[in-house]
């Protein structure tokens, strides 16, 4: 099986400071990988480098495209990368406002991505938007409301609907449940798990919440000061951490 994403030696520096360095891994179709670490450990920098939002200083991000096979997305042209960002890739931001158009209706938010890949039939676009609102548990009657009229949890679910409507194969998520209260968080986790299984998505999830990765991620990468200090099967890394920092991280979780 060809990995969906092959990452080789990614490095990003901010002047003399290291953002992240020497990151390599393979992600296979259907796999969900979590990246954990404290704030400033370079996990968001890494995610942005992988998703093409930041240009890495070194390394390759090779994606197995539908038509052309494995291609290095770091060196591909800007239009090609943008096309990828609208079709096979999706990015769920921590703050839904960063991923939504706040002045456009919920239906418009979902429809925009469909139109970007060539859908033109208004009725069909609207039907699919309503279908997706239902899947993320938002009442279809709210299709014409703007996201500003939605609660934080609903905005986040709308952002997920907008991202998944074009059937991407790889989803990047930056703290998808951060800032949501726990009951909403549980709903969202359940929803994401179902979508990952039904659609066979691969996902890379950055979070600092170890409970979230335990439930969502198959494998885990632990970062500290821009370096990957440990990686492996999620439950193995959490239950039998090998590195000093991971042990500290795991033992620091408050028990409820």
């Amino acid at each position, binding site marked *: 099986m060809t990995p969906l994403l092959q990452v080789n030696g990614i490095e990003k520096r901010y002047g003399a400071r290291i953002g992240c360095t020497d990151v390599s891994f393979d992600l296979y179709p259907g796999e969900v990988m979590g990246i954990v670490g404290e704030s400033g450990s370079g996990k968001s920098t890494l995610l942005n480098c992988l998703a093409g939002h930041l240009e890495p200083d070194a390394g390759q991000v090779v994606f197995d495209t539908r038509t052309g096979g494995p291609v290095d997305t770091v060196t591909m042209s800007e239009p090609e990368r943008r096309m990828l960002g609208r079709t096979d890739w999706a990015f769920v931001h921590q703050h839904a406002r960063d991923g939504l158009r706040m002045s456009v209706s919920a239906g418009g938010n979902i429809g925009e991505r469909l139109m970007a890949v060539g859908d033109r039939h208004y009725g069909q676009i609207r039907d699919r938007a309503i279908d997706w609102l239902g899947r993320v548990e938002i009442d279809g009657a709210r299709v014409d409301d703007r996201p500003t009229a939605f609660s934080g949890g609903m905005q986040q679910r709308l952002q997920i609907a907008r991202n998944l409507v074009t059937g991407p194969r790889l989803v990047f998520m930056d703290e998808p449940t951060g800032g949501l209260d726990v009951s909403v968080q549980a709903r969202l986790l359940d929803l994401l798990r179902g979508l990952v299984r039904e659609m066979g998505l691969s996902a890379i999830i950055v979070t600092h919440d170890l409970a979230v990765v335990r439930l969502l991620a198959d494998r885990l990468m632990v970062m500290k000061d821009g370096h990957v200090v440990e990686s492996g099967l999620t439950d193995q890394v959490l*239950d039998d951490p090998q590195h000093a920092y991971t042990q500290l991280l795991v033992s620091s979780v408050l028990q409820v």
Partner: protein
Amino acid sequence: MIELKDVSKSFTLHNQGSAVIPVMQGASLTVAPGECVALTGASGAGKSTLMRVIYGNYLAASGQVLVGGLDVVQAEPREILALRRETLGYVSQFLRVVPRVPTLDVVAEPLLAIGCDRQVALDKAAALLARLNIPERLWSLSPTTFSGGEQQRVNIARGFAHDYPAMLLDEPTASLDVQNRETVLSLIEEAKVRGAAIVGIFHDVGARDQVCDREINVSDFTPGVAA
């Protein structure tokens, strides 16, 4: 089906003076299809540790852990995940689920994960829950609010939903009443008949004698105790 060759395990506590605690050494065992092997030994002897090493939850320091031909110690995460999905089941003492998911879906999940038809999976889950005396009115609720014994039975139903060729059972009959204990023991018997290789921890001596073919005392693998 399950074969351990000279497996050792130690824990290094980096944040507590880098203490190295060796917990297992020279562990070797073989379990054939259709066989149930009980792990015995005092509390703290390493029964659960050994089980977790087989499941890939703990990383063995050396040796080989072969399950259905795959060496769990060396395998890639995705290989272990595939193994757990298709070949190796584990009934732990604790139920760990996504909050809010109905019990019926929790039990059906292992079947859905291997691509089983949704209705077939739900029917099988319902049959198992009924057999384990979980009242039908609870099936649509999340098991997180259930009593300890009910959670234990949901966990067992989930563990037996898919016919795994290899199974690990961590005290499956603990905290169960007589009737449910019998049901669990007959589930284990049935699994043996269809050819599952089983490793179990049973504190319940009666249960152990009834379903297990052999006993392995894990104290033999404790460093410093065994010769």
